[in-house]
């Protein structure tokens, strides 16, 4: 009798698997860099080509890195939320200007507002690759030691910010 029930059991197993699968986003790719030290970088800043910005500059306080570009349509959508957030919570928000043209990027910031403490200019996208960037915009949350604690791919909406990012930032601020 058992072996006649075998196909049914297999099928039920498959169904359960698919129910689980339906609740997932197949496009979500977990980052292997979570809880790893953020990759080092030493890049020219966007505004002052002669100055540079390094990962060390971010250590010591909780910071966010937002990967953006002037050619990125979704960055445009997320930007007002970043502007508001920085104003309201005085966050350490740094920008990583990814594969962009310097003048285009500056014009873009002028028009839409500049919430960043500083933006690093990653012209070739090499640092982006080190951070595992695949879909702009992306946002990383780093703790005081410079360890990546969270990564968000795609534009951040208000809900995501309030429910996930802000609470995490607050929690990290309490850490040593």
């Amino acid at each position, binding site marked *: 009798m058992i072996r006649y029930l075998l196909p049914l059991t297999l099928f039920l197993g498959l169904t359960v698997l698919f129910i689980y699968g339906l609740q997932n986003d197949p*496009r979500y*790719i*977990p*980052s*292997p*860099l979570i809880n790893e030290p953020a990759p080092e970088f030493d890049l020219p800043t966007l505004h002052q080509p002669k100055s540079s910005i390094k990962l060390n500059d971010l250590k010591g306080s909780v910071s966010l890195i937002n990967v953006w570009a002037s050619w*990125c*349509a*979704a960055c*445009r*959508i997320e930007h007002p939320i970043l502007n508001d957030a920085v104003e309201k919570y005085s966050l350490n928000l740094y920008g990583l200007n990814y*594969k962009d043209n310097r003048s285009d990027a500056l014009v873009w910031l002028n028009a839409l507002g500049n919430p960043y403490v500083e933006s690093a200019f990653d012209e070739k*996208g090499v640092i982006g*690759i*080190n*951070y*595992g960037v*695949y*879909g*702009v915009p992306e946002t990383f949350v780093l703790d005081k030691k410079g360890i990546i604690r969270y990564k968000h791919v*795609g*534009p951040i*909406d208000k809900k995501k910010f309030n429910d996930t990012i802000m609470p995490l930032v607050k929690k990290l601020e309490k850490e040593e």
Partner: protein
Amino acid sequence: MKIKYTIILALFVIFSPNISYSNDEPVRFNDDHQEKRYYKLIEEVRCLVCQNQSLADSNAPLAQDLREQIFQMIKSKKTNNEILDFLVHRYGDFVLYRPPLKKDTWLLWFGPFLILTIAIISTFFFIKKQASNK
């Protein structure tokens, strides 16, 4: 609601390939062996921006960048494993089309052969048993 729709549209704009003209400069190797390695490697890596295309097949800017990266690494005498590790360290196992052999994937790699063996053996016993029935 409108924002959500625009975001989805925007994501589609970003994540769909063929948006920008890519630089399709053919790669130049001096060494035939290196060239073979390059072409094999880019077939084994997934383009993360596209819907299931390899780096070899994709036109997306990120695919170009990663192909360039692999090209440079081969020229600087890195081994295949080092190159793949480089990518996995940044993008995770998802980026490999050939799943690595580890405990999690034993079932995947050995399963089919296990099933095959069990199937053939059980069939054999089944036939023997019913052959001796009258």
